[in-house]
């Protein structure tokens, strides 16, 4: 009787041993399978990231910037650039342009208005022009571009960078203004990328951007206007005038006369 009981107990113990061993072996397989699965998933994620990155239309912009650079350079070459300001510091009139990198009217102004202003007033020493990027268009790309644009100012390449982007804009509603496009614009503008990255990452441009936003609010509200881009604020010895929207050279000339005692 006791022998039978002992044998039964032994059998149960042996069966438990076998089950435990099997469970242990299964766990090892499971651990290996989990590690392999994680490695495969990591590889898939990296491939997806590379694929989605390379499928963007960044290279299109790089080509556009390269082909348009001679036009921008022709307009800006020989004109002194000091940070955000284009033109001789002693000019009696300053024209501040509040712009958004994704604003289509700002893009149109870069084609139709800015080259004429540079030729007629900046190059001749009558006025300076200052870029002040703001965030008006929905989404965060305008702000990212504004910070990137301000970060080119210490290298005196902001005008090249800005005009290249404004003149080659994508659709306002599309997320075309990626970091790669900014990189391409900076590289085409002759920006030292390492220095630019360093400035762009600092708090300095962020503070500058906030100050510009405050100035934009005060300048437009003082004139009884809305915060819209482009806004041209013309400062002169006799005061300040504000012109907004799809502006013509004649409107700017009139504003210059207004702030300079009738002279342009």
């Amino acid at each position, binding site marked *: 009787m006791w022998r039978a009981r002992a044998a039964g107990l032994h059998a149960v113990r042996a069966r*438990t041993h076998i089950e*435990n061993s099997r469970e242990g072996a299964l766990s090892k397989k499971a651990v290996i399978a989990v590690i392999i699965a*994680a490695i495969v998933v990591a590889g898939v994620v990296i491939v997806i990231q590379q694929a*989605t990155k390379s499928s963007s239309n960044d290279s299109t912009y790089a080509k556009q910037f390269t082909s348009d650079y001679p036009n921008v350079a022709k307009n800006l070459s020989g004109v002194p650039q000091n940070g955000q300001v284009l033109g001789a510091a002693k000019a009696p009139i300053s024209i501040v342009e509040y712009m958004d990198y994704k604003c289509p009217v700002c893009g149109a102004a870069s084609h139709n208005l800015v080259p004429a202003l540079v030729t007629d007033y900046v190059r001749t020493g009558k006025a300076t022009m200052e870029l002040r990027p703001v965030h008006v268009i929905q989404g965060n790309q305008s702000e990212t571009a504004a*910070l990137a644009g301000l970060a080119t100012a210490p290298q005196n390449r902001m005008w090249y960078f800005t005009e290249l982007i404004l003149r080659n804009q994508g659709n306002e509603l599309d997320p075309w203004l990626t970091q790669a496009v900014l990189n391409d614009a900076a590289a085409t503008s002759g920006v030292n990328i390492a220095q630019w*990255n360093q400035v762009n990452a600092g*708090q300095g441009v962020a503070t500058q951007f906030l100050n510009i936003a405050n100035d934009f609010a005060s300048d437009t509200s003082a004139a009884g206007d809305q915060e819209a881009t482009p806004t041209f604020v013309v400062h002169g010895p006799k005061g300040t005038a504000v012109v907004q929207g799809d502006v013509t050279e004649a409107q700017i000339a009139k504003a210059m006369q207004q702030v300079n005692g009738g002279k342009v």
Partner: protein
Amino acid sequence: MGFERGASDFWVRIAAAVLAVIGIGVTAYLVWERYHGNAPVCGLGGGCATVQRSEWSTVAGVPVAFMGLLAYVGLLACALVPWQWAALASLFITVLGVMLSAYLTYLELYQINAICEYCVTSAVIVTLLLVLSIVRLTLVSRDQTPVPEGS
């Protein structure tokens, strides 16, 4: 002995839960700043905004920080339950996290040329969580060790 193993497993899971909560804090901050269009406050060197705005900061349009947030929430859930599958799930997430963190660190150093301290913090946290996952699995497998015959 069984009690000691159970107690060890408990403290390993507590440590993992604490690290997961820190990871949630770090990644949630980055997600918050991203969706509000702000540059993250960066103490050392100031590369956070550059990394956060880089073309490598998303995978198929999904921000990497958001993926990290989901991973840490998953790791917290795994730490809170004592089951074997949770230990395996924790291992899966941490191996994946360490590999992707290594890849992102490579991108920061050699492609973006900027270091994001939040990303580095997350990489350290996920590495520690991987160690804890291995310790936890070791404890779980010890609990399954066959009872020696005659004992």
